[in-house]
């Protein structure tokens, strides 16, 4: 067997080797390869280009499905219907206590304070309040109505008199109202049962005609009722799927 390369003085003129019958018999395949004159400028094979474009196409699809809308606050592309423009936060079931606390902090602490004790003579307390946990003539329906339409004028809370105005919170959806009510009814030593979003929805529909804030007198005229037992606070997952339908329900009530 000869060395696999021609002597240097033959330069690179490989084709001359191909005419050498002895060598070509020995090195048939190698020589065929060598005789190929196009080294160095083989074009890119067509199949390769096809594969490349297929990969690029797949890449586009993948990004379309799993980019999470290119949002900085989406960490799990599977959990968010970003294409619908829904906020990332509302997509999963939320613990009503957590949501309620957040709603309370954002809206209620100004008057009722983080302690729920209110301000003496100014804003009534929520802790142990019969308006919140029920008792006497107070029903759960009253509580929801107050949140939806507000309350004004003189009222009696835990034997003390208050004369102020609470704005309506109808702009909050049913889930948020139920969450904040569930929160204040179970926080600071209160231990009344949870209020479901469905119940809020029902009351919202029932009191659609009411446009003015309630007064103690007007509420007293409505018989108090207990909210249907929302099983346990753990029933929150059941409430969550209701949320998407509940949201449009808010607009007729506001109209």
């Amino acid at each position, binding site marked *: 067997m000869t060395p696999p390369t021609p002597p240097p003085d033959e330069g690179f003129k490989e084709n001359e080797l191909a005419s050498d019958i002895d060598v070509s018999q020995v090195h048939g395949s190698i020589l065929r390869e060598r005789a190929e004159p196009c080294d160095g400028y083989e*074009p*890119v094979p067509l199949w390769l280009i096809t594969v490349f474009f297929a990969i690029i196409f797949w890449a586009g699809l993948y990004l379309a499905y799993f980019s999470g809308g290119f949002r*900085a*606050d*989406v*960490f*799990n592309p*599977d*959990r968010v219907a970003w294409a619908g423009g829904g906020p*990332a*936060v509302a*997509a*999963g*079931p*939320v*613990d009503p206590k*957590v949501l309620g*606390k*957040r709603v*309370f*902090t954002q809206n209620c*602490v100004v008057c009722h304070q*983080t302690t729920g004790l209110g301000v003496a003579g100014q804003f009534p307390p929520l802790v142990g309040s019969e308006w919140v946990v029920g008792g006497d003539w107070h029903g759960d329906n009253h509580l929801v109505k107050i949140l939806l339409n507000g309350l004004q004028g003189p009222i009696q809370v835990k034997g003390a008199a208050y004369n102020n105005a609470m704005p309506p919170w109808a702009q909050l959806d049913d889930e948020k109202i139920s969450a904040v009510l569930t929160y204040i009814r179970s926080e600071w030593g209160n231990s009344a049962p949870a209020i479901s979003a469905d119940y809020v929805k029902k009351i919202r529909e029932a009191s659609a005609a009411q446009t003015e804030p309630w007064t103690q007198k007007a509420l007293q005229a409505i018989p108090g009722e207990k909210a249907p037992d929302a099983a346990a606070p753990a029933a929150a*997952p059941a409430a969550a799927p209701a949320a998407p339908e509940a949201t449009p329900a808010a607009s007729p009530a506001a109209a």
Partner: protein
Amino acid sequence: MNKLPLLFLGVFITFASSWLGLVAYPYLTLGNMQPLPDEDTGGYFPPSQSGLAVAGQRVYAANGCVYCHSQQVRLAPLSTDIAKGLGPRQTVARDYLRAQPVFLGTMRTGPDLTNIGARQPDQNWHHKHLYEPQTVTDWSIMPSFRYLYKMQKIQGQPSADAIQGLAGPHAPAPGFEVVPSDDAKALVAYLISLKRNYPLPESPEPPAN
């Protein structure tokens, strides 16, 4: 393939895009993220760390804990991290605001430590485990960190911070005790501070099945 100049330009500019996407973008978004105020206590999520725990991070780094222990709970449908009990929810960017450096980790030769402070809040357990891991978990392949501890003769009363209940081959002889160095105390304070027991809106807890 006569479009080589075009290819050239497109490629180099897209190459620069990775700088924008993977460095500049996180710098501007994640780098400016703030902790969430915690209405309950007036504190923040994630809670701020004690000085000892911050010092413990340096001990954690110096001894390379990160090479065996990750600190991340990956997303739920893809991984089973949550089902495995590593943490209640996926960890997200805000969880790491207090970490310096961030020990995300790439290996789970040992268990994940995202939530170790909640799983194992007992200081003495951690000291015992660091001193001689195999006395706590006999099949553990964690190396001993005895060099962070000092064996000393009991002078009068035993030290208050001596490790209780050591039993292995390196347990102190009668009349001796093992006390943690400052580094060991800081490391344990850091480990116990690793808790993901607070809620973040961008990472809801998945429903329990």
